[in-house]
């Protein structure tokens, strides 16, 4: 026993001394390295899925795809202006059905193989062939004519015509003016035919070409992925738009609290999409700019319009009038949000803003024959942004207009399942939702109302006129016509209020002053489209 314990003490002593001495060595090594190579550490709260292929274009895998791969086109930070990427120029038919692209002739895959139009055709074909493999954000390729046939038989995609190694034409099955900007989404990056031609939906998430060493035409090569630690990217010197300026980009995989901690300690240069609550911790950190960005997402209460108590739109309007959104923004959110009265992207200024008016709310409820005994079940993810501060106040405010609300906090997968699973619709009336990308374009909301006859999703609100308007909006490239159509759709949504929109959060993006040329996009993950232009001083 005695010998054992002395031995341990000696070991512990060695451990401590080596730990102390090593700190100076490490510092030196890092310093020497810093002279030659620049390294940017960046992160965003949330998980990554280690499949570096557009089938998993979700969460934080989404921005990483922009580093490895290229799209046909990209967007400027206004999320509207389309800029060239692999496509140097393009032409859309006036009916928004046929799109022709001229491709860069100097782009190479990261293994040296030349990029051609065949790769684009392959990307579209593979996505159409295995539509269920895509578990992330939707891709555009299934909109191409013949996609259904390809999914069934594996036949060539009828709507794709390779005109030459540097030009390609797509014909869609239905007009869609949004096709072009949607090509910039990370779910539509172009993948290499010679690398992935033998993969199927069964193998795509298991091969090293998607899990360890993906090959793209993008500005950075994935050089190392260490689970729960980081993903390392190294500059692709042969990038067709010129070698990127930063040598290494390290994406750190961190638990939420460590993000602010590492920004404070200087171990992290950039973080995307933090909440206002981190400001007091970060405001005093030296050499750190807190860049604000209005998110394209929203926070709001989905109402289940097929619940008997909520069928009448006057009840839903009353809920709108009964919540003092501006006061909640000013007090609880410390001003870091903008009030909404429609989905972001359709919140036009001349619509009804539903400013706080409890008297009007009571009148509307009376007209709708609201019975005082009704209790609405409000479900939410217990860790949803601001839920625990905001919802009790909303409960109280609605109580004052005579609407009783029962709060029901849930674990994330139970909540997710409850509000998306058609068989559990009876378990909730109101659902506190957040996020999404409605603010990107007016058409982003169309997915929620894409059918007026099919199965009911989320709010259960269906309106054939609305569905038609969105189809019309996509059906022309005439911008004035499109604007007028989306405005009409916005009026309907504003009136029918299937969602009581609360606000659009303003997010904090801490960026080290060392980093230059980093523009934060409203959809923060899109900022990575231009990672090749970032530099460090």
């Amino acid at each position, binding site marked *: 026993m*005695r010998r054992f314990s002395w031995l341990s003490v000696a070991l512990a002593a060695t451990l401590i001394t080596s730990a102390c001495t090593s700190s100076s060595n490490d510092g030196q090594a890092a310093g020497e390295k810093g002279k030659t190579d620049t390294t940017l550490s960046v992160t965003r709260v949330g998980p990554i899925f280690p499949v570096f292929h557009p089938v998993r274009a979700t969460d934080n895998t989404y921005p990483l795809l922009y580093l490895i791969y290229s799209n046909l086109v990209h967007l400027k930070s206004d999320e509207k202006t389309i800029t060239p990427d692999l496509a140097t120029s393009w032409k859309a038919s006036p009916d928004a059905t046929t799109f022709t692209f001229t491709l860069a002739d100097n782009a190479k895959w990261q293994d040296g193989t030349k990029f051609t139009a065949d790769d684009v055709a392959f990307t579209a074909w593979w996505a159409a062939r295995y539509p269920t493999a895509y578990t992330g954000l939707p891709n555009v390729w299934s909109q191409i004519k013949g996609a259904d046939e390809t999914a069934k038989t594996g036949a060539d995609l009828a709507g794709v015509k390779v005109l030459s190694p540097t030009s390609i034409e797509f014909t869609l099955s239905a007009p869609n003016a949004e096709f072009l900007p949607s090509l910039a989404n990370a779910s539509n990056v172009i993948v290499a035919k010679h690398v992935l031609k033998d993969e199927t939906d069964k193998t795509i998430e*298991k091969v090293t070409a998607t899990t360890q060493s993906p090959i793209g035409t993008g500005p950075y090569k994935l050089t190392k992925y260490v689970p*729960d*630690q980081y993903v*390392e990217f190294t500059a692709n010197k042969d990038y067709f738009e010129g070698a990127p300026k930063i040598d290494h980009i390290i994406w750190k995989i961190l638990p939420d609290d460590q993000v602010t901690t*590492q920004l404070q300690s200087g171990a992290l240069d950039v973080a995307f999409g933090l909440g206002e609550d981190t400001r007091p911790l970060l405001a005093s950190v030296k050499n750190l700019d807190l860049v604000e960005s209005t998110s394209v997402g929203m926070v709001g209460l989905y109402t289940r319009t097929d619940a008997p108590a909520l069928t009448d739109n006057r009840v839903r309007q009353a809920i709108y009038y009964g919540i003092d959104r501006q006061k909640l923004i000013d007090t609880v959110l410390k001003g870091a949000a903008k009030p909404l009265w429609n989905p972001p992207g359709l919140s036009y200024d001349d619509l009804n803003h539903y400013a706080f008016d409890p008297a009007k709310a009571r009148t509307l409820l009376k007209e709708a024959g609201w019975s005082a005994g009704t209790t609405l079940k409000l479900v939410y993810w217990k860790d949803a942004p601001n839920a625990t501060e905001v919802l009790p106040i909303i409960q109280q405010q609605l109580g004052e207009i005579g609407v009783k609300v029962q709060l029901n906090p849930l674990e994330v997968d139970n909540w997710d399942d409850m509000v998306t699973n058609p068989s559990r619709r009876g378990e909730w009336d109101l659902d506190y939702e957040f996020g999404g990308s409605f603010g990107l374009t007016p058409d982003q909301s169309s997915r929620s109302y894409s059918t007026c006859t099919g199965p009911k999703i989320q709010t259960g609100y269906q309106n054939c006129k609305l569905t038609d308007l969105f189809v019309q909006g996509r059906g022309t490239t005439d911008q004035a016509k499109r604007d007028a159509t989306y405005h009409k759709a916005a009026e309907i949504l504003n009136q029918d209020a299937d969602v009581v929109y609360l606000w659009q959060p303003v997010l904090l993006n801490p960026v080290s002053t060392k980093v230059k040329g980093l523009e934060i996009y409203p959809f923060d993950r899109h900022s990575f489209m231009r990672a090749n232009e970032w530099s460090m001083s």
Partner: protein
Amino acid sequence: MLKILVRRLLQAVPSLIIISFIGFALLSIAPGDPLTARLDRDALVHMSPEQLQAARQALGLNDALPVRYWHWLTGVLHGDLGYSIVTGQTAMSEISSRAGATLILLAASVMIAVCVGIPCGILAARYPNERIDRLLTGGAVVMISVPTFIVGLLMIYLFAIRMGILPAGGLSEPGAPTTLAGTLRHVALPATVLGLANAAPLVRFARSGLLEVLASDYVRTARAKGLRERGVIFRHGLRNASLPLITIMAMLIPDLVGGAVITEVVFAWPGMGRLVVSSAQSGDPAVMMTIIIMVAVTVITANLLADILYVVADPRVRVS
């Protein structure tokens, strides 16, 4: 001895089966759907009921509980622990890529717990009710009472943010080659937090055990013989007081494993603790079950080891 060992090993089999079934059942009846962890919310909302059903079928989520348990159990007996629903990798590869980190953390923590806890306990017992004793037992009570994540956050604030001498989290400097020195630097804070939390009960048990022994007749005899105090404490006192300590240390192992979960999350340590948290949140059955079994095996082994050491250290146990 061999008979005891065989009997205990045989007893472990039904324990493991019962633990695994309870774990499996709890995971299955917990509300929610593992599918939500795999699919993007936007995709999930827009899937038709038929598509959802097909996706569940493909992941084997549609069978009845006993059927799924049977599939899982036979799979395990054939060495197949299943796939993670979230990442599509095998449960074993998910765990093995993180086990090393956890072992480093646990080994360093045990070392700190033993090297700090037992000497402090001896010191406190040597000077009972004096200032040093009060300081040490008081410190131990504080370490037991304050949750590890608070101690962890305080340490991060002090050493990583204010002084900037140790990294705030992680196992290595991203991009830099892995070195022993770098690993030690990264393990220092989490291992100290976890080690001290587990040293605290050791201080108290070592102190009380030793005090009891030091009050016994044979110690008085030893002192009466004129033996030096150091000899009294180490040869007569500690050897006898070490019996309960062996049990305590074995019982600390489940505590350590539990504490590691919190410590790993606080310090962004890329080990199994973080995997437990993320797979519990996403309800990833294969990964959770593998971890449950591994923890159960660890606890059973630790108890077995304690029994064996006890037999080795105390001949009286052998006789009875």
